[in-house]
Structures are given as C-alpha cells and as structure tokens.
C-alpha cells in the first residue's frame, strides 16, 4: 500500500448511486465542464494536482467475455480519484471548509452521504468509502501543485529575460534584472524532500 509518493497523496473512493440520480450528476458535471467559472473553488484549493470523478453505470463495467462473469448491480457507482499535497485530514478539512456546497452538489446523489458539514460525519463517510492505492508514481515527487505553477511563472520570465540579455547595455540589463527579480521573487519557494506526514 502506498497512498503517498513524495509530496502527493493518492485518494480513491467509490460510492453507490441510484441509476436515475447518476444522470442528474452527469448534468451537473457537464455544466461544470462547460462553465469553467464554476470550477473556481476547485482551483482555489491549490493543493490539488489532478482530480477526477468517474461515474460508472451499473451495466457499463468492462466486460471482456473469456469466462468473466457479468456484473449484476442495482446501483451505478461514482469513483473519485484525487492527487493532492498534504495530509488526508488537511485535505478533507479544506474540502469541507471551502467546497462544502460544491461537494454536496456532487455527492448528495450517493447513498447515505451525510453532507460535507459537519466535517466529522463527512470524514467518517469518506473513510468508509475510501480504498488504498497499491502503486503510485509521480514524475515530480519533490514538487507540489503550487511549486509547479510557480516554476512555470519563473520559466516564462527567465526565457523572456535570457532572450534579450545580450542586447542590453549593462545599465539596461541591471534594470531588467531587477524587474525579473520582482516578477519571480514570490515564486522561488524551495522544492525537495517531503516532510513526514501522519
């Protein structure tokens, strides 16, 4: 079991939904996808690198014949996979505090979902529907989502300055360099080994 790799935590969860409710959820996700402004709270939770919801209809589990028994289910299932920085508790607390209405909108269609507030019952539910990761890989285990965003800001500024650096007089360069430092100074946080988390 390896839910953690470097600074990222892999979370998996599965919840049952009555089939008619999963269609309501599809409409909600469609709206979220079509109107990116609705994703702002998710973007504000800047410790999420990637996350996805996968709604699997009860008759759409992959069936390959070769003697495989067909699934005979009453519920559709909502799978949730998240790649986030920090601890499980921090993640669920922040999810509940920042995204309470959004989470309710997504999971209220799942059976026995208690609501994302108060957080104690929400945590109990997530712990019940979560299952552990057997293998987890990340191309940049030393970096968080914020490190990545910052690194791309630095890269863009650096490329812009280095393309012009040879053409400036020393005085012009000193001024341009100062402007560069001002642009990137808030984006130079250190990457490296992850802290020990519990």
């Amino acid at each position: 079991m390896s839910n953690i790799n470097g600074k990222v935590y892999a979370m998996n969860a599965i919840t049952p939904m009555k089939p008619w409710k999963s269609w309501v959820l599809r409409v909600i996700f469609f709206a979220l996808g079509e109107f990116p402004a609705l994703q702002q709270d998710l973007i504000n939770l800047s410790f999420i690198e990637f996350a996805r919801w996968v709604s699997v209809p009860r008759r759409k589990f992959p069936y390959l014949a070769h003697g495989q028994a067909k699934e005979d289910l009453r519920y559709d299932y909502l799978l949730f996979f998240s790649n986030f920085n920090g601890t499980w508790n921090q993640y669920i607390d922040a999810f509940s505090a920042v995204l309470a209405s959004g989470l309710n909108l997504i999971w209220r269609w799942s059976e026995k979902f208690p609501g994302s507030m108060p957080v104690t019952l929400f945590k109990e539910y997530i712990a019940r529907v979560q299952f552990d990761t057997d293998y987890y890989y990340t191309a940049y285990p030393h970096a968080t989502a914020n490190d990545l965003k910052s690194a791309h800001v630095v890269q863009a500024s650096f490329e812009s300055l280095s393309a012009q650096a040879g053409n400036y007089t020393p005085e012009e360069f000193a001024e341009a360099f100062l402007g560069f430092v001002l642009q990137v100074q808030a984006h130079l946080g250190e990457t490296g080994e992850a802290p020990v988390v519990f």
Partner: protein
Amino acid sequence: MPNQNGSVYGLTILSPILDDEKASPSHDLQIRLYLSTLPTGANSPFAKSPGTHLCRLVVMDDVVYVGAPSIEEHLQSKYLVFECNLDATGEEGLEAYLRGLAEHMPDHLDAIWSHCVGYPGAADVQAFIRYMKACQVETTFFFAAVNNKSVTESLRALQTQRAVADFIASSQGMEASRLQAKFVEFAAKLKAEPLPKPGSMGPKRDIKLGGRNE
C-alpha cells in the same frame, strides 16, 4: 470530451482480474505482490515511458456497502484500476501513449496484466492498445491544476526555478556589467544542462536549520 483537460488526458482503466479458485496465491494477490516490488522513483518503469505526470495502480476488491437502508451488493470480478494523467490529445494521442508503454515496459505490463481477463500481452502492440481501450471507462469530470504543460516542460521549469533562486541569492549587489556577463553565462549553462530524471527527488540539498520550531 471529459477525458481531456487542455493538453492533459485523464485515462481511467478497469481491468477485470482473473477469478481462478485453483490459483495460489490468487491473481489479485499476485498483482499486489508484484506492485509492492515495483520502484516508484526515477527507476519506475513509468519514468522511462514518456508523458506520464502521475499514475496509480489499485486493486479494487469490491464495491462498498454504506449501510442500511441501501442495498448490499458485490462485484462479480475484482478490478485492476489504472488511473493515469498523461500528455496526450485525443484518441490518437492516447494510442501513442499506450504504444509507448508497450515499447518501454512490456515485461512489467505482462507481469501485472497477465492476471487480468483477456489480456493479450504487450508484444502485440495493436492487440494491447485494443485491450486497454476495451477496459477504459470515460472520465466524467477531469480537473488538472496545470493543464497546458508537458512532463518535460514541468521538469525543465522546476530545474530553472531552483537554479534561478540560487543565482539571485549569489548575485546580490553585483556590479551591472559583471551581473550581465554572469547571467548570460548562467542562462547558457542552464539551457545545456540535462533534464532531471522523471520521478527523481532532484539534487540533494542541505537541510536548513534554525526555523521557528527548532
């Protein structure tokens, strides 16, 4: 297309695991045993296969019963879940990525997926791609914090960020013409540096002591 967010593709695969009472240990346990030995850092097979940002492999034993009054039910098969965030655009991009997996890590793929129903092996690349796509389920909603940069671009940017921080620290108060010459030299050197290996923790840095909690 919900599988796509910018230039990143969210691949979700559910491969049914063989159910054979005579297998000992059981196929799902054999997958778990193998995955527990697979390196997760720079020596990971996924680090050698280009375009993987983050991925996971999970044996899903069953669905979850959340309590009365919901109905208790069970899956007929266990599933191997492959959740992958990769550089690809559209179905052609996905097929190119799967081809890359088959070419760069065929032995690992066979060791893991040979415990799954109908797996054809990675040697027949077209059959492998068909199999993976047959096991694919469409992502309903896919979020990516950075959705317009490749793995290579992200590794390069992280390398630049680290080097720039060091350069700024070491060049404070430097006279203008010397600063310019040093920067041009630094930029040329940085561009020529090899890319950090995917999956690695980057160069070892000294731990800074003296923080508030020490």
